[in-house]
């Protein structure tokens, strides 16, 4: 999808998925964004973004990792697909290029 691009939250979520691999699930992602970017994002927003990106083919998911602290419930573990990683990279390149053209801020 040539015209598609990552929006801010998507980029943060996708980056967190890569960072957290192999234990990237919604709540962990929420905490990661909170810790790294200092942004309070609601769980539901994370879910929406994950759902959207999964539909776009940038991430894929599987169930697993039940644990006691989750009341014995499974996690949905997300991994970035190659399309997702490509997207991240191209976004970063574009960003770097733009930064390079700035002399002073």
């Amino acid at each position, binding site marked *: 999808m040539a015209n598609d691009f990552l929006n801010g939250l998507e980029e943060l979520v996708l980056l967190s998925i890569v960072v957290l691999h192999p234990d990237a699930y*919604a*709540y962990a992602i929420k905490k990661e964004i909170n810790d790294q970017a200092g942004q309070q994002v609601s*769980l*539901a927003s994370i*879910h929406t973004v994950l759902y959207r990106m999964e539909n776009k083919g940038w991430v894929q998911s599987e169930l697993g990792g039940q644990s006691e*602290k*989750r*009341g014995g419930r499974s996690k949905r573990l997300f991994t970035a697909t190659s399309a997702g990683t490509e997207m991240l990279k191209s976004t970063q390149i574009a960003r770097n290029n733009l930064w390079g053209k700035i002399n002073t801020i």
Partner: protein
Amino acid sequence: MGKDQHHIKPVPPRFAIWLLELFCASYWLDEILGDMEEAFLENYATKGKSFAIVAYYWTVLTFLRPHIIRPNTQYSKTGLDMLYNYLTSAVRNLRKNKIYSTINFTGLSVGICCCVLISLYVHHESQYDTFFDDADRIYRVALERQYPDHTRFFATSPVNMAEVLKENYPQVENATRLHRLFFQSSVDVTIGDQNFAEHDFLFADEQFFDVFSFEFVEGTGMDALDDPGKIVLTESTALKYFGNASALGRTVLLDTASFIISGVIRDLPENSHMKFDVLGSIWQLTFLDNARETNSWINPWLNTYVKLKPGIPKETLQSELPQMVKDFGFASIQRQLNISAEEYESSGHGFHYFMQPLTDIHLHSNLDAEIQANGNVMYVYLLSVIVIFILIISCINFINLATAKSSERAKEVGVRKVMGGTRTQLVSQFLVESVLITFIATLLGIVLSYILLPSFNQLIDKSLTIAPLLQPVVLVLIISFIFLLGIIAGLYPAFMLSNFRPTAVLKGSFRTSNSGVWLRNSLIVFQFFISAIMITGTLVLNKQLRYINKKDLGFEKDNTLIVRNSSYLAENWQVFRTRLEADPGVDFVLGGFGLPGDFLGNSIMEAQNPEYPALRVYTNTIDEHYIPGLGMHIKEGRNFDINFNDSLSVLINEAAADLIGGVGLVGTQLRPTNTQPNQADAYTIIGIVEDFHQQSLHSQIQPLLFFKRGEQFPPFNMAVKLNSNENIANQIAKVESLWTELVSEAPFTYTFLDDHLDQLYEGDNKSQDIFGVFTMAAIIMACVGLFGLSAYVAQQRTKEIGVRKVLGASIGNIILLLSADFTKLIVVAYALAIPAVYYGMSEWLDSFAYHTNVDVFTVLIAGLLTLVLAWLTTAYQSIKAGLVNPTKSLRSE
């Protein structure tokens, strides 16, 4: 957190979990719950219990997102399937029980048809005059005229009031005058060699088209009536006169004067309180011109309409009207009556003007000198009540039949429940079914009302169209009505049926509950309560109208041919009279200003003896044949006589004599109060006429005075009393041929006195017809319902009847047994109805000054009728049940 730890593990709020489970798709549910629990435990540990709980709830709410909410594909699929299933079983049920469905559909659709028709009528009546632009700020100024002994209300006001209002009151944007001829029923219009008698001929001033918005086909409202010689036609009148040729600028003759057509307007919609085909200028009427010049404030000659400026409430002007009478009217009273206005007021006279909103005139105004007979808001209310009754009756039929049929549906309900049908599903099944029935019945009802509309129009003498039904608002109303009625009617059966316990039902030990019987019985009582009211009402109405027909009016109304516009006979009128009198088929030829039932003028007379009070009397001018020709009787004194000079003689009626109050009044002199005492025109009473009804029986007999008419002019109206042995048609032909021989410029217009008098009761006759029809509808529906119910009862008691027959009961016993139940209910209903009817009908009868009573006999007849109807309705089913061979009814188990 391990299980060996001592403190209890915190648990997220159950309700929040339940909420989430309610809407969350199962695909997401597990992980979301997991994530949330993780968050909850962390919050609990770091920020405390309450924060954790609130945060948990909040998170649940934030999950209300489209992709997370459970797509209800699976649910809606079953929903649609079930709806389809409900419809199928509804249709099958309707097909299976043909009688039941027919009764349901007829009852409901007849009810809805009545409802549609009456609503159209009520809508029509309530929309009078709303089509005028600015109708909300146009008012008519009406007069409450106070006399020392009574008060009269006039729709009319003095001739100069419009100008006074317009020039002196800043609230008034414009004012106009409208006049109809009070003493003439038609005006003759001549175009070339054609004659037309125009009955709807009004007169207006030059402001008329500024106040009332009319659309001009030819000409403009600006100058349409600015000259006494101009007249305006409606489109259809112009078409009648000139065909498709232009009418503008052409000349017509009214009577003998010629007028120029200055405009052609579109025909008025039917729903206007003013109706005219031809509109002349009021200034062509010389008496109005005179009244204007003398600035008379005594005679209310014409209708005054004011248009207020936008946003001004009517009270701001109405409150100034008393002062207006003082400022502008008192001088005229003083001048014309020769008495100071203050004295006049203190003697008990008063002119109180009030403003009637234009759109209220048709339904709420019933004053003297209206432009045409207005509608009566009472009839509108009454019809609305009747239509509600009819609707209730049809709903009751529906509910009753459905509950009665419930035992048959019980097995179906049982099976559905066993197969896993929930109560909600069953309730919706029955609601869907009843909404379906209402839907079909409503469609049928609307189609039926469309078919019946022409007959209904004939009945009420209007031309209603179905058009108001097609407005979007109304369509929405109809659809909500379908759902509302369907749900109301279906609610009780739905809940009752869905409540059955499947085991009981399927085992066959099911019996209709007692509460169902109770409800059914009260509904039947209510239905027959309404029917009894309507039957009695119709009978009393009939009785009153018969009373009117039979009542001795004090004169004979049969075989009397009224020749209108006899002034056209001009100098030939005596030839007309002599030739007719020579005819053996003619008993009398009489002439006068007005005949019984006609509008009469009035004046104030004062007796010469100062002990007698001044009296306001209606006056008529008649010849010596009038009294005997109409079969009136002289009680005292003598009739006018050609052997006397009677030009200063008068006859008075008993009511006038009573008002004067003396005995031996013959020979007493009377003088009109508005003449100078030295003008020697005092009249001598030469005779007293027995009271007769000049007006309808709605009003009391008023004091009346007859002057003798002079022979030099033709009378305004003539009447020919025909010999009852002659063929009426031949006689009419003879009179007509004589007329055409003597008169060339006007057509022969005639009517019979009894027909003419019938017109006074047109409203009453019409309402009798309407009530008759809708009473029939209500009764038929109540009977249809009873028929269905008796069929059901007979069927329920089949076995009981079989056993009774085996034990020796006769068919008669069985019929009695089955009728007894219904009879009891109807007797109860009737007992309840009597007081209601008695009160209601007495009120109505009181609107007639002369009326019959609600008597025991009528009430009994009505009761018997109700009962007989009910028996006849149930008889078929009872007899059928009684005739069944017990071997058949007892065989099957």
